[in-house]
């Protein structure tokens, strides 16, 4: 990564070996956003942004990555982003495993039918329980619920609306959960074979929720989702990575920081990253 902000306190002292992981990716203090030449490919670093501000930056300034400084995790987050930027295709092949290759444990679970949900839940909760933190288990479960519904219900419906000609779950294709755990974080990815995620729509919805409140914008009609799952995922994690190869694959990852109490985790500043191939 190339530090383009001179004199930024946030970008001081980053080891060269981490910068070298993605040598051409610009790393910019968000205060210098107006001077960024290639905002879409840069990583912007901040420290005091609320979720709504992050979403507005991404929507209004067409940027793809806002990383917030959380001291204990910052260098790991930078390494993760360097891997994402340097080899985006790797993210679509190995999901959370690509972002955090040096992890204590990993599980991969394929699924393609609604009747597999409880089996999936049991395995994912068993994995999360190894963190020995009830609040991490609850967050993992909340994220699993929303990712699962998106993959098994929403993504196929969106694909149908777009008349996507491709194999569907009932023809044998699978979605995949990938979970990885280290001392510092637990990451949960879900990949579906539809590629129908619309990042702009997702972000606009998030913006609406944070502006007006989930209760004001919730979809109370029977058809479709409730439209607040995006915020539930982000409220239960520190970072979200939204990845899509249109009409081919969607991979969404949520990262939960470990080694913190519930209150400390709630105070962690959030980050959001997009990758579209």
């Amino acid at each position, binding site marked *: 990564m190339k530090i383009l902000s001179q004199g930024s306190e946030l970008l001081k002292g980053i080891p060269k070996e981490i910068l070298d992981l993605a040598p051409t990716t610009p790393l910019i203090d968000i205060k210098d956003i107006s001077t960024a030449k290639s905002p879409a490919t840069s990583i912007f670093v901040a420290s005091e942004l609320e979720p709504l501000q992050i979403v507005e930056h991404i929507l209004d300034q067409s940027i793809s990555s806002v990383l917030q400084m959380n001291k204990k995790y910052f260098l790991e987050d930078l390494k993760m982003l360097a891997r994402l930027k340097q080899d985006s295709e790797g993210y679509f092949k190995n999901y959370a495993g690509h972002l955090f290759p040096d992890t204590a444990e990993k599980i991969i679970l394929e699924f393609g039918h609604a009747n597999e949900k*409880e089996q999936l839940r049991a395995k994912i909760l068993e994995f999360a329980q190894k963190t*020995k*933190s*009830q*609040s991490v288990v*609850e967050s993992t*479960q*909340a994220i699993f*619920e*929303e990712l699962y*519904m998106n993959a098994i*219900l929403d993504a196929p419906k969106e694909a149908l609306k777009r008349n996507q000609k491709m194999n569907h779950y009932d023809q044998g294709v699978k979605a995949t959960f990938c979970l990885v755990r280290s001392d510092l974080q637990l990451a949960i990815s879900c990949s579906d074979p539809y590629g129908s995620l619309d990042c702009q729509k997702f972000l606009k919805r998030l913006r609406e929720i944070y502006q007006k*409140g*989930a*209760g*004001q914008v*919730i*979809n*109370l009609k029977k058809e479709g*989702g*409730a*439209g*607040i*799952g995006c*915020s*539930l995922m982000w*409220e239960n994690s520190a970072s979200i990575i939204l990845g899509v190869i249109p009409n081919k694959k969607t991979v969404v990852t949520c990262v939960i920081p470990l080694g913190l*109490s*519930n*209150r400390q985790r*709630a*105070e962690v500043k959030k980050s959001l990253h997009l990758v579209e191939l």
Partner: protein
Amino acid sequence: MGKFEIKIEKAGAAFTVQVIGVIDEDVDFNSYSLAGATSLELNLEAVKSINSCGIREWIKWIGTAGTAQVTYLLCPKIIVDQINMVQGFLPANGKVKSFFVPYYCDESGEEKNILFTHGKEYTDSTVTPPAAVKDDSGNEMEMDVVEAKYFKFIKK
């Protein structure tokens, strides 16, 4: 038992409801009519998780209770989070009679959920936590929430 169950006991127009398990996209509240209730007390201790579709169906279901006095008790953190995050999850005329607050000990890493009861640990506008909460080894535990966020529904 399936992943979700509701038990309703009726004493005239006073309904006592116990909600058990997972409230998700498969939930069907249609079999559990709240029509005729003038008071509705919901014990939520055994709710294991609730997703966005479950939140939607919950709001619609509770809405069918009309003008009944609605009370939630023994709310776990996942329910308190929804009460705070989603306006309407607790109806406008609803009250929370008791809820759990997570506590944590830095020294031992132990987690505990402590019950706060209306009239004791909180009123309609104030929170008075218990004097001391200790883990199993006698170490002091701290309230493990961002108070402004977690008690938001109380201090409205």
